[in-house]
């Protein structure tokens, strides 16, 4: 009887130990999975030409439709920045996908992270909603889901549907360079920036082709060519965040 008791106790101990070990192992695997290691041959970047931009806001709308962004949030904002000659000048601002992103550095749980191809991504399943990234972003590129977004999205047309899941209440969201289009396009053998299906929605929707998207590692890409031929600037370069969104200033020759 005593013997059996000990055996039972041992069994319980052993199973408890086994359960704990499994839990720790699973935890460790999850933690290590949180670091998307590996390399990518690509380095995505966007060029926005302020000389062409008319401030129509199609980029914002397309973004809303494809990413199911609620009406009170804009992943891509179009801001009037003044007059240039006799026409207005605009600044369209997606997420800068900084090389040294303050949001990634400050996030306590690695819900914001760098993809190997340079996209600054959000893990919406992990975000705790502390909003430190919002405080840290110099570009106001992030928005918090103060309320649950329910009902149909007015920006989504009847004939289509968003490509990504709607974010829950209580997490911070932002532009992802339409990673879903890039990834699916690459899997289909398409070239992001060349083939519309593999290019961010805002770039495709722009009626005046003010936006160009592509791979900075690819010398044949349009972004590479533009940036090596034309002077460009980035927002708040003094901060050293190294944005991957480049701007071409409004210029005289095209201002007419």
């Amino acid at each position, binding site marked *: 009887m005593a013997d059996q008791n000990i055996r039972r106790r041992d069994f319980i101990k052993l199973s408890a130990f086994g359960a704990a070990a499994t839990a720790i192992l699973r935890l460790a695997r999850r933690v290590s999975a949180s670091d998307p290691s590996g390399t990518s041959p690509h380095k995505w970047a966007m060029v926005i030409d302020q000389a062409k931009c008319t401030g129509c806001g199609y980029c914002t709308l397309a973004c809303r439709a494809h990413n199911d962004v609620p009406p009170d949030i804009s992943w891509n904002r179009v801001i009037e920045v003044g007059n240039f000659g006799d026409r207005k000048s605009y600044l369209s601002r997606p997420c800068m996908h900084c090389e040294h992103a303050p949001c990634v550095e400050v996030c306590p*749980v690695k*819900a914001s992270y760098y993809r190997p191809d340079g996209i600054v991504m959000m893990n919406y399943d992990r975000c705790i909603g502390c909003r430190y990234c919002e405080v840290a972003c110099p570009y106001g590129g992030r928005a918090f889901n*103060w309320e649950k977004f329910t009902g149909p999205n007015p920006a989504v047309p009847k004939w289509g549907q968003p490509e990504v899941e709607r974010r829950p209440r209580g*997490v911070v969201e932002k532009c992802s360079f339409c990673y879903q289009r890039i990834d699916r396009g690459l899997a289909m053998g398409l070239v992001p920036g060349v083939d519309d299906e593999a290019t961010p929605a805002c770039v495709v929707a722009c009626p005046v082709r003010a936006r160009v998207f592509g791979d900075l590692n690819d010398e044949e890409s349009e972004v590479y060519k533009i940036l090596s031929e034309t002077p460009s600037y980035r927002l708040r370069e003094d901060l050293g965040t190294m944005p991957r969104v480049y701007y071409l200033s409004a210029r005289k020759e095209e201002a007419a």
Partner: protein
Amino acid sequence: MIATIKSIRWTPYTYWVTALLVCMFFGAIAGLIVFVRGLSVTNLTDLVPWGLWITIDLSAIAMSAGAFLLCAAVYILDLKQYQPVARTATFIGLIGYSMAVLTLLLDIGRPDRFWHAVVFWNVHSVLWEVTMCVTLYLCVLVLESAPIIGHTKWMQNRWPKVAQWMVRVHHYAPYLAIVGLGLSMLHQSSLGATYGVLKARPIWYRPDLSVLFMISAMAGGPSLTVLVTMLAARLYPRIQINDTILEKITNFIAWVLIGYLYFRFWDALSMTYTYMPGRTEGLRVLTKGILSFNFWVWEIILGAVVPIVILRSQRFRKQPVLRMIALGLVVAGVVAYRWDTTISGQLVLLTYLPNEIVARYTNYFPSFIEFLSGIGVIAYGALAVTLGIRYLNIIQHYEVPAGVVEAHSLPAATD
């Protein structure tokens, strides 16, 4: 029900507890509304994402700084005479940190994921470090407070064995004090660094914030401990306090305040030198704008200068009422500093437009629900300390329960 209420003998104590319970009740309702309806019930925005709750959180942690300071004094510097005060400070620290955890749960958008920081580490994040330190230090405080609970009659009668274990934890007090000192120094200053590392906010972006948060906590924490001790001794005749050691602590507070004021002065003065977009405007908001009353009156004059005068002058500090007022002002000054820092960094926004890097202003005033839940948390803290004074004997400088008389060794009776 009415009969029971009628049978209560209404004393100042019962009035006080009832008032706190009412505040807690409404606070709990407000908290429930926050959890059900989400943070849309607050006045926080994407431009000012942090507000009243963060201030309460930062203040509660600063007010708990007495715990690590006095424990370090007793168990590391071997200043045994402060042991009874360290006991009080430890308990206040435990309550303060639990208040901070409660407000954080209110504040994060996904309270169900509060444990993520423990599992998913981002070692680059100051906030991660703070979260880990606060979690670990809360464990230290629980252990440090265990002997207090273990000494209660109720515990000893109900679970004598558990009570014995809890008392035995005291054996490890020096080690806990070392761990506590390390963790506290780390996160008290890191709370300042949480703001100080943000390039996007020029008024915050400077290393001084961590130093100032540390020093102001070293003044505010012991102030609250001494204030609560003196207040309790006045209200409960059975509580006997040793005024000599309290006076020594207030003397220490005065010196810390002088150091704080000195660093604060240079910090502020250095920011006036040359125009820097965002920073200059932030300083203007602080010293001339809407926060100027808080800054000059609560932070500098009442929060530092007046207490220094009172606590440094022997004639003034010998008068208990005057000393308590001074300590209360220090506490208020530290809270005002936390609020002003939090708000000044967010009210001024720096634009990112190419030819126009200028400051823009926004506004924030906490919503009713924010106030209600915040007051609820504060009421919880006040109630916990009140009950601790009454039932856990946390303030007792002479009739220390057996087993805590000596700081280092444990009497044979419990071994």
